[in-house]
């Protein structure tokens, strides 16, 4: 086996040093009753070349572009990734290193993550961002737990227009602790109805996603004003951070904690993971924050350098009293997003976000003319809800035969919206693809 370097001669000489006869003797500390008496029932080992054939066969069954035209978003977005990003990310000094516990020989990872923290904080309009969480869903759950720690209150309110899977993960994380989750209603314009919040003075946090699951941009300043009066922390979550290239970021609109999914920033969809849990807050709350943080310092000779810091919040120091149990996070994905943001740049991200917005507006106009109803009239970024003229199922099935995947059906999550679909369009979708969708919907 090419990953195992030992020759028979090596093994004999090493066994002699250890003072045992054969390999089995190495396991003498394991009681015989604990050992397996048979070989593992696994497929025979494949060669490198056979493995390639197997994975090709599996991958070929998947519906992906360009063979398919896919108008799906809903928390996972198709954006172009510069080849330079994938290439740099493949440098094994980054990818094969462990968490940077030994800073002297991990300055590459450490500076890169410090830069990621800075770029993430700037994009979200916040004072500090951590080194990453697993994904947008667990980041939201951890943000709510953080708010519970800060306010010492046990009840949280969620917008119903937060990604349904994120809300499900929140229920999983908060359930055993006995915390109460209040779900707010939504308005006819596709935004969260916050009118019920006034008078709720025992909330630890109110969380709103913007752009929300229907693609609508929420009125965050109004939400901030209402939430402020309740004494709860204002959490903003997101699934599409590219929106902040065009729309105002949550930080400048009053958010106390901002968290969400960063997959759009240079990370392939990869069937939903790994993505990037982004997490940012105000500096006054940094000691209640979960996750790793990289900080700037100096070495013995006074040269600048970086280290993991504020570790007393973490499980390896505080054990059961830690802010979170997180250890391994999604560091390489954070690095990918920093490389992506560096490549696209401040000027570029504005242009790219505008292009996404303009394409979605083009598709909305075309579908409307083709007889679709656009369910909500709030501004959207790159996805939106539609009702097809001839019902969802028929249209969806007919389009699938043409290798067009016409969005994600909403009925399973929102029973009040049967026959509604969430459609997404990004810079990777050409005008002719949108025209094809419009033509087929009309016919």
């Amino acid at each position, binding site marked *: *086996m090419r990953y*195992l370097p030992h020759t028979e001669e090596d093994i004999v000489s090493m066994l002699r*040093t250890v003072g045992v006869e054969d390999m089995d003797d190495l396991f003498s500390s*394991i009681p015989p009753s*604990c050992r*397996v008496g048979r070989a593992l*029932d696994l497929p025979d*080992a494949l060669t490198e070349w056979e493995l*390639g054939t197997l*994975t*090709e066969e599996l*991958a070929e*069954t998947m519906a992906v572009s360009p063979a398919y035209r896919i108008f799906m978003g809903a928390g996972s977005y*198709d954006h*172009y990734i510069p080849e*330079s990003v*994938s290439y740099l990310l493949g440098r*094994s*000094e*980054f*990818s094969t290193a*462990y968490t940077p516990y030994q800073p*002297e020989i*991990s*300055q*590459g990872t450490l500076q890169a993550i410090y830069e990621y923290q800075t770029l993430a904080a700037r994009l979200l309009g916040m*004072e500090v961002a951590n080194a990453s969480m697993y994904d947008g869903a*667990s980041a939201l759950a951890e943000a709510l737990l953080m708010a519970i720690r800060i306010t010492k209150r046990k009840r949280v309110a969620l917008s119903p227009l937060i990604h349904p899977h994120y809300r499900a*993960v929140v229920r999983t*994380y908060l359930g055993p602790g006995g915390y109460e989750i209040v779900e707010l209603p939504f308005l006819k314009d596709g935004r969260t109805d916050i009118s019920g919040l006034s008078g709720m003075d025992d909330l630890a946090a109110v969380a709103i996603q913007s752009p929300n699951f229907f693609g609508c*941009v929420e009125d965050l300043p109004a939400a901030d004003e209402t939430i402020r009066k309740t004494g709860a922390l204002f959490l903003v979550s997101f699934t599409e951070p590219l929106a902040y*290239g065009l729309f105002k970021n949550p930080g*400048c609109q009053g958010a106390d904690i901002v968290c969400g*999914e960063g997959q759009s920033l240079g990370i392939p*969809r*990869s069937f*939903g*993971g790994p993505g990037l849990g982004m997490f940012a807050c105000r500096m006054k709350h940094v000691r209640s924050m979960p996750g*790793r943080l990289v900080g700037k*310092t*100096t070495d*013995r000779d006074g040269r600048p350098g970086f280290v993991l810091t*504020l570790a007393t919040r973490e*499980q390896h120091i505080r*054990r059961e009293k830690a802010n*979170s*149990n*997180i*250890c*391994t996070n*999604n560091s390489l994905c954070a690095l990918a997003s920093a490389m992506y943001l*560096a*490549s*696209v*740049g*401040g000027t*570029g991200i504005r242009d790219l976000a505008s292009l996404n917005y303009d394409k979605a507006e083009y598709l909305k106009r075309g579908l409307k003319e083709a007889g679709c109803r656009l369910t909500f009239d709030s*501004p959207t970024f790159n996805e939106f809800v539609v009702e097809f003229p001839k019902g969802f199922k028929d249209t969806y099935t007919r389009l699938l035969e043409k290798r067009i995947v016409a969005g*994600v059906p909403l009925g399973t999550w929102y029973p009040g919206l049967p026959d509604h679909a969430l459609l997404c369009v990004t810079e990777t979708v050409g*005008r002719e693809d949108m025209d094809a969708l419009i033509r087929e919907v009309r016919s």
Partner: protein
Amino acid sequence: MKESQGTSGLILNEPLLWKKGKKGRSGFSMPRRDVVPSPADEVLTGDGPDLPDLSEVDVVRHYTRLSQWNFGLDTGMYPLGSCTMKYNPKINEKQAVLPGFAGAHPLLPAELSQGTLELMWRLERYLAEITGMDAATLQPAAGAQGELTGMLLIHAYHASRGSRRSKIIVPDTAHGTNPASAALCGFSSVPVQSNERGVISPEAVAAVMDEDTAGIMITNPNTLGLFEENIQEIARIVHTKGGLVYGDGANMNAVMGIVQMGKIGFDVMHLNLHKTFSTPHGGGGPGSGPVCVKDFLAPFLPVPRIVFNEGAYRLSEDLPQSIGRLHAFHGNFGVMIKAFCYIMSMGGEGLKRASQLAVLNANYIKDSLKESLHLPYDRPCMHECVFSDKLQEAEKVTTLDMAKRLMDYGFHPPTIYFPLVVHGAMMIEPTETESKEDIDRFIEALRAIAAEARDNPEMLKAAPVRPKVRRLDETAAARKPCLTG
């Protein structure tokens, strides 16, 4: 010793990203604008993010220089105990970026995503076989999330029987994530001490196990690199009182094909695909922490579950007793591909061989170094061995000093000051992918360092001198945090 691997070369300084570039540069090929602009509402739009503008060359040089300040597993031996820094096969990286996988949307209908579902379904079965369990979920994104999943499963199991237990037993050798994960689930940790042999005794467990205790979390082999030899008796004690046994599988690399945890009393355990199954650690993730369970816990597993019938795979949410969701989608699929490829490349025999050689390498290091370094538990170890700095105390040389000096010799230091039960611990896990020559060089380096500790302790206190920076002021970093630039 022979010439050291560690040397100094030309290392370039590199400013922070935003100190480079110039407004108007770009490293991105902007897609053609084929639709008319539609101005957005100006009340909603801001000025745009304050990000630097860089050319592609700026970006490539920046990250190439940064990468050169890092020591990776491909650079050299990385013997971090309990982290299993084994070689990350290159072919697996290529499989993970196949367009059908990397481009797949997670909400594609089942009929359009048979390949990813099949891969996950098969991986679940292989992991269940390796651990001797009956079912698995791949959803947890890392080991700690796997632990949380396990705790939630135990919590749900007790709740389904109408009981709510408040405590969980956690040995003093456990990783910090164990008590932290238990706490997230509302359990308070009850510590048990390991005995003079470095393992948990049945008596210690019997003394604390009661009907308010949900179960026990055991890392096996434990973090001293020792097999918990009383595991079957401990499991019997816990089960008799209605508790469950959770296995932290961080150290599974020692016993693949040798011990099936499901057959020796474990009810639920997690694995780290980024340790045992060779996926790269990425400088701190992404990992993947699948959880394997016995049949009676399967109804509580996270949704969605992958179901195979009538020749097709699909996802099912129909599991009324499920603990719910742990991840926005299906977990870290990109990591699962690499672990699947590793298992397919190794086969059952290859995995067993890997465990045997991992244990051989660790014992070889243990027996080669026990004259130079203090070995608190002098007995056969599994995949890792733990030394301490006791012999160097007279010269006031610490484990930290020796670890830093190892860098000058061209090695990544081992895990230090863990497990907590050994004062000044130095925990060495070579893994099976290190050759005898590399291990011999490592042994020689540590022997030389032990000699330096005796003859020239100041040299160790000044170490390291060869990396780009010397020891960093961590106290100042924490006192006045500077977390963004």
